[in-house]
């Protein structure tokens, strides 16, 4: 009789642990997905890049039709290129109203695509590492985004991500950073 009690107790503890793990994982992994990591990606222009990346997010159900236009428009007024050391970065995004489910799409470009620099809007940024952000709930995702942005001042981390050869490698590195 006692065995049943012990087994039930152990099962309960095990499930509780799994649930907690999932919740913790969900905080980061809900934003990162292997099919949203694009290696050796190419685009001839910023517009083509933003349209194509938006299309991928739309097809997978993360964003609405209006997201693409939102990202393009925002990029014109408030550009998102960053002249970071190591590898140059861009973080295109738009208002939460265009987003269905939050996610971060990461594209590693073979050839740089020119963005305008955030802030000045004047200098060009030859970006090769693109983080397209689909933010649903800014206040909930702000911590994760803050952690992502903290690597922009770390040349080695940026290079490490850019030089990854598999999507799993990229996810592992980013998950560590976002945890």
């Amino acid at each position, binding site marked *: 009789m006692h065995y049943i009690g012990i087994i039930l107790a152990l099962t309960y503890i095990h499930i509780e642990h799994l649930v907690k793990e999932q919740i913790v994982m969900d905080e980061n992994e809900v934003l990162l997905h292997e099919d949203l990591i694009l290696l050796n990606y190419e685009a001839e222009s910023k517009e083509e890049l933003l349209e194509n990346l938006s299309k991928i997010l739309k097809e997978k159900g993360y964003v609405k039709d209006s997201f693409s236009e939102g990202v393009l428009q*925002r990029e014109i*007024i*408030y*550009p998102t290129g*960053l*002249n*970071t*050391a190591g590898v140059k970065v861009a*973080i295109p*995004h*738009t*208002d*939460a109203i265009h987003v269905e489910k939050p996610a971060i799409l990461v594209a590693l470009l073979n050839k740089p695509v020119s963005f305008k*620099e*955030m*802030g*000045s*809007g*004047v200098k060009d940024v030859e970006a090769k590492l693109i983080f397209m*952000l689909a*933010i649903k709930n*800014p206040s909930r*995702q*702000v911590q994760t*985004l*803050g952690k992502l*942005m*903290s690597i*922009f*001042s*770390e040349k080695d981390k940026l290079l490490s991500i850019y030089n990854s050869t598999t999507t799993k490698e990229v996810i592992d590195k980013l998950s560590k950073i976002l945890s």
Partner: protein
Amino acid sequence: MSKMKRIIVACGSGVATSQTVASKIESMCEDEGLNVNVDAVDIKSLESFIDQCDIYVSIVPTGLKDWGKPTISGIPFLTGIGIDEEFDKLKEMCQK
């Protein structure tokens, strides 16, 4: 003790860039013992807040409007490049 300086950071969609920069500035000021209050807002709300601040940290093209407040760039706090120089400017503004 010097008077508390109110610093405001604004970005395009209030998504996270302004908050990341605000948080960075806050911790750097704390390390220096500067008496500041840092707020992050989205650019649309900026107009209603700008009068109340002492220093404006910009991460959007300044060409759009001159707010008439001591201004520094927030980009160095995101990229780390030129961060010391920009922070020195901020410190000077806090002394005034």
